[in-house]
């Protein structure tokens, strides 16, 4: 009987394993003796050059790259920490809480600046600002807003143009969206006013950066707030349709972070991967890189990078989160 239950559990696991990945790719599956399972929120095409460079150096390691949303990473990882070797996510707060809760393995062999790592377990490897991305057509002949305040004014000035054409993250679904929103709420007084204005314009809510940028290019929306700059950058270079604006009143800058599961079956290989990852992303002359490098300053100006510290857990508190979501819904969902 017990065997049947075990079998049933395995099947259920496998079933849930197979389902609902945004993307799933194998690298170097043929020659390798070791497989690293990486659960990540970063699109495969942005990460592929790095993985290919890694497996070229480490032919004995294969990589199974599984893509899902940031909140989903947190849920799955907490549920089965054994099933993954490495978790990569742009939701710094969730990653930090995973580390704080003891899910991450300290890696003695990785040397990384103190501001970009926590407990020698969680390693930041990109610096990515949250951007305001606009459809150029919607602002033709008009000044382009350079700050949140100017964005509010522009939205208020032409509500007919922007009604139902403003987009931002649905912070209830997106971990990264929640991180950006909470950090904005903390740092900028204008945040809630902006939310009110966007709510008044029947804001569209998105789970992911990709969809938002698609709609921007299509012209379905004219303004996207708190979009991940790196995703927009990947499109902006080829198209003149959209423009990325880093708010002049400090862009909120996050780091993508990686951690090795404490229950990892392949801790040595995983540590090698993290070493490679931070080296690759810190290298000032890495030509194949698609992700933004880890960089504390932009053009010599220090960025307001979200600090890796226990305070990140504040907004993950149930009461605090409920409170925030309540306020957020009040502001944005007005009908």
């Amino acid at each position, binding site marked *: 009987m017990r065997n049947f239950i075990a079998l049933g559990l395995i099947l259920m696991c496998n079933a849930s394993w197979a389902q609902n990945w945004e993307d799933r790719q194998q690298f170097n599956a043929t020659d390798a003796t070791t497989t690293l399972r990486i659960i990540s929120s970063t699109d495969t095409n942005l990460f592929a050059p790095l993985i290919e460079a890694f497996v070229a150096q480490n032919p004995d390691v294969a990589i199974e790259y599984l893509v899902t949303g940031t909140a989903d990473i947190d849920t799955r990882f907490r549920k089965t920490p054994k099933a993954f070797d490495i978790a990569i996510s742009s939701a710094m707060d969730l990653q930090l809480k995973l580390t*704080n*809760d*003891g899910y991450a393995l300290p890696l003695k062999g990785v040397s990384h600046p*103190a501001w970009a790592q*926590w*407990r*020698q377990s969680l390693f930041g490897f990109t610096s990515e600002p949250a951007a305001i991305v606009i459809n150029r057509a919607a602002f033709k002949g008009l000044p382009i807003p350079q700050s949140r305040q100017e964005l509010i004014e522009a939205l208020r000035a032409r509500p007919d143009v922007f009604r139902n054409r403003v987009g931002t993250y649905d912070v209830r679904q997106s971990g990264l969206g929640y991180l950006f929103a909470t950090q904005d709420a*903390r740092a900028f007084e204008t945040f809630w006013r902006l939310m009110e204005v966007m709510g008044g314009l029947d804001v569209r809510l998105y789970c992911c950066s990709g969809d938002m940028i698609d709609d921007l290019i299509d012209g379905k929306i004219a303004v996207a707030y708190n979009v991940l700059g790196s995703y927009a950058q990947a499109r902006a270079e080829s198209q003149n349709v959209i423009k990325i604006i880093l708010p002049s009143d400090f862009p909120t800058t996050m780091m993508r972070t990686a951690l090795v599961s404490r229950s990892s079956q392949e801790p040595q290989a995983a540590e090698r991967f993290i070493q490679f990852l931070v080296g690759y992303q810190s290298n000032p002359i890495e030509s194949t890189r698609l992700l933004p490098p880890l960089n504390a300053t932009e053009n010599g100006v220090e960025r307001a990078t979200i*600090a*890796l*510290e*226990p*305070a*990140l*857990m*504040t907004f993950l*508190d*149930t*009461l*605090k989160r409920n*409170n925030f979501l309540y306020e957020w819904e009040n502001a944005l969902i007005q009908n």
Partner: protein
Amino acid sequence: MADLSVSGSLRNRLALTLIGGAAVLAILLFFAVRNYAVQVAQQGQNDILQASVTSMLDAAVIRNNKVELDLPYSAFSMLATPADDQVFYAILQDGIHISGYDDLVFSAGVSGGNSIFETGKMRGVTIRKISASKTLIGANQRIEIQIVLAQTQDALSDTLDQISRNAAVLGIGFFALAAALSFWASSATIGQLGKLTSSVTRRGPQDLSPFSKPVPREMAPLVTSLNSLMGRLEQSLSQSEDFIVEAAHRVRTPLATVRSYAEATLQRVNKEENREAMRSMIKAIDESSRAAGQLLDHAMITFRADHLERQELDLVALAKELVLRLTPIADMKDLSLTLQGDSIVPYSGDFVLIQNAVRNLIDNAMKYSPAEGSIQVIVSAGPSPQITVCDRGPGFPNDEIETLTTRFQRGTNATNTIGSGLGLTIARDVAAAHGGKITLTNVQEGGACVTLSL
């Protein structure tokens, strides 16, 4: 001196005591510093936890009959440490968990206003946790908000490690310094004893004057006792020498008188048995007189040995004069007395003493020689100036050849011969006073030789 039983060393004992004390002090210092640092560091962590939990409690309000707790960002922000310590918290409402980590236990015994610190384990790591509560008063209800906040102690133990290392360096440094000082202090202290010892050692054998150099107070009783001992010793020595001189004088003079009377009586008596008795008497008187003379000689030598009056002299001349003077006495005993050896042996020494010594040697030789025997006095310059007196007597007993020069010691084969046992002692003392020695040897074909080497 070799029999003195030596147990331990004052210097080592002193140094060990001081070093042991220093080691104990160094260890105490290390633990005191470390203990103090633990308290200070722990107090620092407590203060931050207290501040954080207070700011969290301050954020709790009742709104619409419902508890709201809008955690301030700074509450966790202030808990950031260089070692990236983990933070755990739990929020309870009237004992029911409403947010945070549900495996963090609120400490019983917290009543409104106060807070309790505890150190414990959570998820396999050591944590410091604070439990605090606050009573919220609503429209018609009282709600107790309880918060447990915990932090790991990595930064604390890093700090403590660093402080421990510094404290260890401090302790070792203190110990090294104290050990060096201990060696120096014990050497300096024992040095005073060493000084006294060397000044005692440097003294001549007859120097019994008191020590007058300043000594540390602790050594004063020792030196005082030493001085008084030497004073008594000197007094008793001089008393006994005086006594001997006095006694010898007092005996010799009446003896001379008795001898002259005995001689005169011998001339007058005719009966053979009476004559024989008189001769025996005269012989005994001679012997007593000679012993008294030797005692006087010895006392004089003991006195002069300290104040040698060295002069340039010729040992051959000295020996020749003695031989000339003693030849009549030798003739009386039918002995032949001859002088041999180098023609001139210059030496710088005390004439009276050397003469005395050689006369005693010849005296001895004459006493132990059989009738018609020959006595040779040989003076030679090499290897060192020496005078040898050889006789044809019975020789020295081989097993006593080492001890015969001791005062009043006589050979076991000499019981039939009258003597005081001082002759060889006088010769030895004279030799010693000149830095030389006497050597006793037996001659193969009979007889013995005594060599006085200077």
